[in-house]
């Protein structure tokens, strides 16, 4: 027996108050296995103890939501008997330690969250954030993460269709890897994790259990320090081929009426899946660990319960249906083992080698889990504008050249070309635009998907930043002509025990609540990653929003590419030229003070719905949301694909603020000559503010008296990654 000392308790991330509660509840000292179980279940990652109070305030329902947060993934009704199942999750710390495997297993984990609910995954997205490009680790981490994402997704045969890449010094020693998966299921064939049926069998399927990632969940919640590299041997290695087998075996079994409940073994492995499934059903669960398929010899109960080996699932089956399932899993060369049963005791009982290693009342683990309303203070930057004389007097073309060659605005093609984004042949709108569109296989309906966040806005004003992240995801779905339905969120923040960081979290959530409500865009799933700090320095608050929308008819959608010379260029929404916290200010002028643009949600709604109507009525087929970098960057992105340029005639005193400011609720659209009257009419009718600023033209970008060829711009736009990575 291992004696539980104060040090051991501390190592498990349990504070003295929490430990006292454990002692009182158990009425004895916990065994080491029990302590491990408490530590995993009460870690930030599993218990949401610092975030629960705030998360529970987010809107989670609208007329499309079938299942909100609390399950493996969220489920929405997309019509015609289909449902979309989706979620985003972080794999930040593992990816920092071993970028390839960390990112790969992140993708593997989010795939399981989706197919465990009965949905076949159809698309992956990844929001990845690295330190500044000059940081010594950035190249290694970037290449490792991108190949890890590609490696796993490509092997599984699931297209990676979107995401974000950002470089910022706040991620120097704490990168972010947030993976999102979207799947499609028959609406009446969704599988849940709530266990039921006393006496039913608890079944382990998938790969064997090794000593992988022991205490990954606890590690993911502990601040990194100089010694964190010592924690290396716990890294999990992904095996996408096993996951593919697991996917197909689950899909085959799900066609039969056999599974009572199912959940993947993700963070905290067997512990969290067993506890959560039995807990949701208000039942007890008894496991015999001698029956767990192990990869290594002499694994202890503690190790088996906390292992985070990948590609494993836990299912509840009626005992007389075990054989049906067994046959399928053996056919797919996967382990299948009945490891326990459901009881009516509300206890978690773990037996191993003829001893009871744990006996805990489930309510203590779940409902007894700590929940803190931590002190917080919402701080925003001072409202310091940029002085006129610091503005560059350059002509806009030369600023444009610098901006599109900067790491945060250049083409992401190098990244997404490494991902198979066309496999399954249902990718209707490819990566590189506002949203990707995936056909619902065999139908003429599509799903639009996007992921967005603007951390520098959140750092300077959490509330506006929270609103903006949701609004931008909504806008990206609108600008392809789809109806935005719901979101998943991945909340990456620093140490919540610090008032100002907790304030960032609270402020962002408040902003999100308002945006979700106004835009009818609820949260259906998500994940929280806290303690993203290195040596006490927090990352920029990064709420990544994954949005999903529906394209009713795939004959009618829009993309961002200019298609015809002479099309009228319209800017929808007001441009005041808001420069503070813009990319122009932050990266070109190196001016990081001041407030981000305000998000007027009523304007967002009005302008967005007008854009959607224009697309749906086939009045436009070219639209792009204006975000990072502002108006001119948006228009330049629109010109790259078909090498069709534009000529702008703008007479403003503050031309550069106008062109590079980041006011919200704006879109750039191109309108054919014979439709311009109808477009003006509709916009005026809806009382939508718009400006006509020029026309599309041959292969040049012309602004008043300056011009540049698109091919010249394209060269610098598309080559940044190659140049960066080829330098030693």
């Amino acid at each position, binding site marked *: 027996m291992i004696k539980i000392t104060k040090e051991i308790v501390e190592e498990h991330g349990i504070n003295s108050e929490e430990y006292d509660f454990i002692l009182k509840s158990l009425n004895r000292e916990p065994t080491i296995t029990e302590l491990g179980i408490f530590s995993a279940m009460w870690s930030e990652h599993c218990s949401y103890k610092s975030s629960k109070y705030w998360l529970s305030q987010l809107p989670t329902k609208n007329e499309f939501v079938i299942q909100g947060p609390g399950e493996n993934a969220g489920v929405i009704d997309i019509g015609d008997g289909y449902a979309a199942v989706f979620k985003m999750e972080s794999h930040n710390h593992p990816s920092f*330690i*071993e970028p390839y*495997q960390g990112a790969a297993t992140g993708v593997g984990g989010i795939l399981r969250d989706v197919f465990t609910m009965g949905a076949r995954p159809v698309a992956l997205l990844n929001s990845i954030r690295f330190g500044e490009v000059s940081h010594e680790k950035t190249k290694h981490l970037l290449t490792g993460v991108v190949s890890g994402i590609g490696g796993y997704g490509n092997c599984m045969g699931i297209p990676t269709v979107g995401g974000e890449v950002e470089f910022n010094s706040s991620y120097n020693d704490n990168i972010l890897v947030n993976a999102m998966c979207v799947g499609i299921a028959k609406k009446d064939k969704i599988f849940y994790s709530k266990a039921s049926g006393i006496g039913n069998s608890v079944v382990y399927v998938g*790969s064997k259990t*090794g*000593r*992988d990632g022991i205490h990954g969940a606890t590690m993911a919640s502990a601040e990194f320090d100089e010694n964190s590299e010592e924690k*290396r*041997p716990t*890294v*999990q*290695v*992904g*095996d996408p*081929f*096993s996951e593919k087998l697991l996917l197909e075996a689950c899909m085959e079994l799900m066609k039969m009426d056999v599974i009572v409940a199912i959940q993947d073994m993700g963070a905290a492995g067997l512990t969290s899946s067993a506890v959560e499934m039995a807990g949701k059903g208000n039942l007890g669960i008894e496991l015999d660990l001698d029956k767990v398929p192990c*990869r*290594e010899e002499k694994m202890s109960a503690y190790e088996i319960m906390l292992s985070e*080996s*990948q590609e494993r699932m836990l299912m509840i089956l009626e005992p007389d249906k075990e054989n049906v399932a067994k046959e399928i899993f053996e056919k797919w*060369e996967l382990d299948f083992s009945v490891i326990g049963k459901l009881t009516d005791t509300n206890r978690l009982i773990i037996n191993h080698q003829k001893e009871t290693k744990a006996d805990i009342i489930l309510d203590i683990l779940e409902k007894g889990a700590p929940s803190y309303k931590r002190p917080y203070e919402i701080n925003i930057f001072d409202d310091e504008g940029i002085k006129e004389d610091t503005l560059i007097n350059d002509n806009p073309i030369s600023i444009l050249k610098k901006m599109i060659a900067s790491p945060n605005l250049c083409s992401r093609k190098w990244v997404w070309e490494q991902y198979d984004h066309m496999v399954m042949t249902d990718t209707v709108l490819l990566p590189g635009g506002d949203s990707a569109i995936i056909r619902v296989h065999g139908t003429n309906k599509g799903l639009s998907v996007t992921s967005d966040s603007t951390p520098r806005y959140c750092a300077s004003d959490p509330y506006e930043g929270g609103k903006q992240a949701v609004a931008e995801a909504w806008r990206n779905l609108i600008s392809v002509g789809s109806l935005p339905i719901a979101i998943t969120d991945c909340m990456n923040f620093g140490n919540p025990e610090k008032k100002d960081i907790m304030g960032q979290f609270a402020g962002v959530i408040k902003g999100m609540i308002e945006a979700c409500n106004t835009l009818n865009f609820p949260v259906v799933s998500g994940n929280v990653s806290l303690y993203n700090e290195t040596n006490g320095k927090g990352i920029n608050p990064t709420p990544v929003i994954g949005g999903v929308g529906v394209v009713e008819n795939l004959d009618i959608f829009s993309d961002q590419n200019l298609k015809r010379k002479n099309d009228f260029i319209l800017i929808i929404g007001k441009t005041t030229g808001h420069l503070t916290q813009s990319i122009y200010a932050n990266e070109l002028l190196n001016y990081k003070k001041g407030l981000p643009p305000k998000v007027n949600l009523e304007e967002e709604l009005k302008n967005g719905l007008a854009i959607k109507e224009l697309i749906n009525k086939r009045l436009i087929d070219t639209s792009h949301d204006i975000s990072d970098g502002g108006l001119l960057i948006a228009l330049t992105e629109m010109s790259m694909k078909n090498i069709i340029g534009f000529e702008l005639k703008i007479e403003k005193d503050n031309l550069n603020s106008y062109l590079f400011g980041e006011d919200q609720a704006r879109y750039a659209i191109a309108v054919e000559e014979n439709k311009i009257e109808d477009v003006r009419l509709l916009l005026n009718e809806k009382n939508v503010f718009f400006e006509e600023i020029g026309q599309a033209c041959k292969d040049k970008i012309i602004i008043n008296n300056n011009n540049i060829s698109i091919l010249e711009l394209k060269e610098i736009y598309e080559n940044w990654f190659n140049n960066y990575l080829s330098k030693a």
Partner: protein
Amino acid sequence: MKLNVKIMPKNGVLDPQGKAIENSLSQLGFKNFSEIRQGKIIEIDIDADKDQAINITDEMCKKLLVNLIIEDYEIIFDREE
């Protein structure tokens, strides 16, 4: 100085290739074997004496050849020369 670097997955780290080989062998009817792990061998010829060669190879391993997070390595000399 000719030497080999033998690189193997660390003990306890999942080795999907080894697992695949193991599965295929048992499908072919082979019995009584277990614990297959697959690594790799890298041959290097270094123009230096043995001690120096070890030092240089060690650095090569740490900087490029080996992913120390999931692999172990061993420097092996062909034969005492």
